[in-house]
């Protein structure tokens, strides 16, 4: 019986062949924590009584959620994180002005490589599946123990394989594919499991599109996500990598928990309606829904390709007078590239706000919190009750083209309506 890529990566990190269902302590290659999960991590780390972290090069600390500090309490938390980083000589600490949203930043920095086992005190750590790594979301206590010992407990998950066949239509991308997958299996369809995204449509997809897909696997309950590394993956990681890596792939006779086929030939852009990422409808069915705000950004859709797509819809257009559009590049590099390519000018000319990288509005932190009764369309990942602000506000999740088009229309709509 063959092994899944996930079983192989776990085997490599436990020093013995392990199968789905087994409980193991595994060595981790990288531990991530941010400004909202780190204060608890630091508190727990002190309780362990370890004098030093297990490896100062294998920890990444990124103040990205409530930064630039939104209030005094957030400033204190960032300070705590900064002081911990200094005290332990953490190599990969990223200060404001040199940082980005963690799940966009770490792959960009070459810290997430094929075959890695990475844990992060953030549920969207599963994003790293796009480079053929296992990224697993954990809690703050987990992160503290991993920082002290380099190890953590896991149950080796089974894998659900999605096979996307066919050719994507214009304006349909990774966001739509992952929304289709979540819709298919529900918000707990992959609970305790890994998801492997495969098929022709995935091979055709850019790295940015693959990041978007793996990022939202957790919205189907998944422990981690995985895309088999190919030429695109190697081309992406090789110039960034500062250490060697060994890509892993699932054996042809590996046992999957489920294999699900989705043909994308007729798929149109999809929108997840509140209050669940699984509540998915084609954009053409949602044309009477007026919006107050558009958010383009986040660890899901704040990469360069996302901004290019949004800008291509917005070029020469203006944001509807009743709408606020907030564009947030995911990293400083994305910001600079957007500037160089002239995207920034398109957003500003259209009447959008353009911000320094932050998770900000995605989780109702700052930089675009919604009032009672307000409605946003957003390229982010969650539309739970109160996610972006008031419990009586609403969030619709969409790809960057739909978000940009909706901003021009003042209601939910697709790019064809704006460009025709």
């Amino acid at each position, binding site marked *: 019986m063959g092994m899944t890529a996930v079983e192989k990566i776990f085997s490599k990190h436990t020093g013995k062949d392990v199968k789905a269902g087994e*409980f193991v*302590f595994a060595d981790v290659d990288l531990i991530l924590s941010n400004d*909202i*999960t780190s*204060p*608890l991590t630091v*508190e*727990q780390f002190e*309780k*362990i*009584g*370890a004098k030093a972290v297990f490896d100062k090069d294998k920890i990444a600390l990124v103040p990205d*959620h*409530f930064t630039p500090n939104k*209030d005094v*309490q*957030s400033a*204190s*938390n960032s300070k705590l994180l900064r002081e911990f980083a200094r005290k332990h000589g953490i190599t990969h600490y990223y200060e404001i002005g040199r940082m980005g949203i963690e799940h966009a930043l770490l792959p960009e920095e070459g810290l997430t490589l094929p075959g890695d086992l990475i844990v*992060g*005190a*953030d*549920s969207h*750590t599963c994003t790293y599946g796009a480079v053929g790594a296992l990224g697993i*979301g*954990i*809690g*703050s*206590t*987990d992160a*503290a*123990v991993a920082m*002290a*010992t380099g*190890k953590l*407990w896991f*149950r080796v998950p089974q894998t659900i394989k999605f096979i996307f066949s066919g050719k994507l239509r214009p304006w349909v991308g990774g966001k739509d594919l992952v929304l289709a997958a979540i819709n298919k299996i529900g*918000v*707990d369809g992959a*609970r*305790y499991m890994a998801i492997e995204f495969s098929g022709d449509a995935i091979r055709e997809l850019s790295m940015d599109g693959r990041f978007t897909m793996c990022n939202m696997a*957790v*919205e189907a*309950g998944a*422990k981690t996500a995985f895309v088999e590394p190919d030429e695109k993956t190697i081309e992406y990681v090789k110039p960034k990598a500062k250490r060697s890596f060994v890509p892993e792939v699932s054996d042809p006779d590996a046992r999957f928990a489920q294999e699900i086929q989705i043909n994308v030939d007729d798929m149109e852009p999809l929108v997840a309606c509140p209050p*669940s990422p699984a509540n998915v409808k084609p954009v053409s069915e949602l044309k009477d829904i007026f919006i107050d705000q558009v958010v383009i950004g986040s660890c899901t859709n704040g990469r360069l390709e996302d901004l290019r797509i949004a800008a291509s819809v917005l070029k020469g257009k203006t944001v509807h007078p009743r709408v606020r559009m907030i564009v947030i590049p995911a990293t400083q590099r994305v910001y600079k590239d957007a500037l160089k390519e002239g995207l920034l000018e398109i957003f500003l000319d259209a009447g959008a706000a353009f911000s320094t990288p932050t998770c900000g509005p995605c*989780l*109702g*932190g700052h930089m675009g919190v919604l009032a009672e009764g307000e409605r946003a369309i957003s390229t982010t990942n*969650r539309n*739970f*009750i*109160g*996610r972006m602000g008031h*419990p009586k506000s609403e969030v619709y999740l969409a790809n960057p083209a739909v978000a940009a088009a909706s901003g021009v229309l003042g209601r939910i709509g697709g790019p064809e309506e704006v460009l025709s």
Partner: protein
Amino acid sequence: MKIKGRVWKFGRDVDTDAVIPAKYLNLQDPKELGRHCMENIRPDFAKSAKPGDIVVAEENFGCGSSREHAPLALKGLGISCVIAKSFARIFFRNCVNIGLPILEAPEAVDAVQDGDELSVDLESGTVEDITRGLKFKANPMPQLAREIAEAGGLIEYAKQHLL
């Protein structure tokens, strides 16, 4: 350990943004977090819940964000145990790691109603609905999760086994 408390019943897919909204994530004190627990979906919960009370929920409790603030908020409020048909995985491990008792007991969840009086034996996994005179058995916890819980949480476990 035996626990006795009144039931607060919730539906399926209660996410951690519902358990503790993100605007409070710059806090860490369990008691302070507890004051805002569930405020977006059940505003009376944090005001009226008494120490020892038990949260009962349908499938996939604690989905979404990894925030450990969610089990901490429940703990800070004095919730003695969470019983659900199933738990989202990060929430599950956070509870094991910080020592908030959790049980998967699908049949109990179907029978138990809001306000019922429960008696829970964590060792044997027995859930007794005193109000209705019914008894249920929870699914057994995985061995390693039990060992971590018995050590008093992951920090104590790590001190004993990993350092």
